[in-house]
């Protein structure tokens, strides 16, 4: 028992330090690189407005467009690494904004609903839940071959329940247990276990896949 507890702590620690590093890089991209590029953009726009030779003006215009694209991409990279909403606004706004990005990335529509009042969650746990949802949605874009997903959050006094259901091709979930290559699903389950919650995946060929996540909300209050 002793040993398994400490192994779990080590796993938690490894994940947490990785998440902190990701968050640092994400912030650095957004506040550092992104801000500098923005200053360059404003400078170039100023120069462009003062130019009179058409070919130089045109050249500078193409250049400012390139910087605009780069700024946009830096912003998306930063959000993709670590959504700022997760730290500042909480899990629900972070998921909502991820869904927007997800649809514009993969073209898959998400029918989203959140029932009940959002409860505060420790950042470490909301990051875990967010990552698990992210993996579930990514799996759908990669494997499910469907344009529609249903995602629902239910906030109860004692727990948060999330379901992510697709009506795509499905797969044989049992076969995965002895398949070492598919670490994504194993990691989803592990991460939820480390938060004290659960992740259950069921799937049927031809009918689709459902991912059910639960996170206890009460214990968090003690610590």
């Amino acid at each position, binding site marked *: 028992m002793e040993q398994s507890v400490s192994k779990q702590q080590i796993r938690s620690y490894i994940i947490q330090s990785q998440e902190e590093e990701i968050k640092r890089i994400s912030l650095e991209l957004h506040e550092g690189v992104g801000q500098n590029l923005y200053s360059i953009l404003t400078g170039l726009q100023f120069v462009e407005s003062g130019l009179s030779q058409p070919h130089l003006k045109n050249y500078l215009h193409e250049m400012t*467009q*390139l910087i605009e694209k780069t700024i946009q991409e830096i912003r998306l990279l930063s959000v993709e690494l670590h959504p700022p909403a997760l730290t500042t606004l909480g899990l629900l706004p972070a998921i909502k904004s991820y869904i927007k990005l997800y649809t514009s990335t*993969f073209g*898959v529509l998400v029918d989203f609903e959140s029932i009940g009042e959002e409860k505060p969650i420790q950042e470490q746990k909301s990051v875990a839940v967010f990552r698990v949802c992210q993996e579930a949605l990514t799996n759908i874009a990669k494997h499910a071959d469907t344009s529609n997903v249903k995602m629902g959050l239910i906030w109860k006094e004692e727990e948060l329940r999330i379901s992510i259901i697709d009506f795509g091709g499905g797969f044989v979930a049992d076969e995965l247990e002895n398949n070492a290559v598919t670490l994504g699903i194993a990691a989803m389950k592990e991460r939820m276990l480390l938060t004290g919650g659960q992740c259950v995946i069921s799937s049927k060929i031809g009918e689709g896949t459902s991912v059910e996540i639960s996170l206890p909300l009460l214990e968090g209050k003690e610590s």
Partner: protein
Amino acid sequence: MRMTEIRENHGVMEVCDRLRKEVGCDFVALALQNEVGPDVRWHYASGNVNDKYKRITVRFGKGIAGKIISSGSPMMMSDFPKDIYGKVTDHPIMLAEKLISCYAVPLFFNGSPKGVLLIGKRVSYTFSKSEQEKVKESGEALEQLLRSHILGGGP
């Protein structure tokens, strides 16, 4: 030019559909930078199996279309997702349309790459020199057709 207008632009449709027949591929699609802002989207597709492409915004520097817009050079993938750069999820159009191989060229407007013409197959395949040439020719035809709309700007 708005998306609906391009979908109804018969010249554009004709070029894409003819290219698909001539090369005998499963899928042809055209991505263009929006009039305003840096966003690049898929404006027209032929041989598509769903309408995901309509909602996809191409990311600058990511996936085959994003790389072409940032580099200005043609690219090919023969056996997706084998030997790809980046992650599988950096290639949404391949996933959305279940493509295994593709070849794509940039479209230039005002001297910069602002569009992509892509052909794809749902089997692994290496596009021959002459097929690549056909895509380039169609790309040039599209540049001509779309030039006035992209540069003219006016309503």
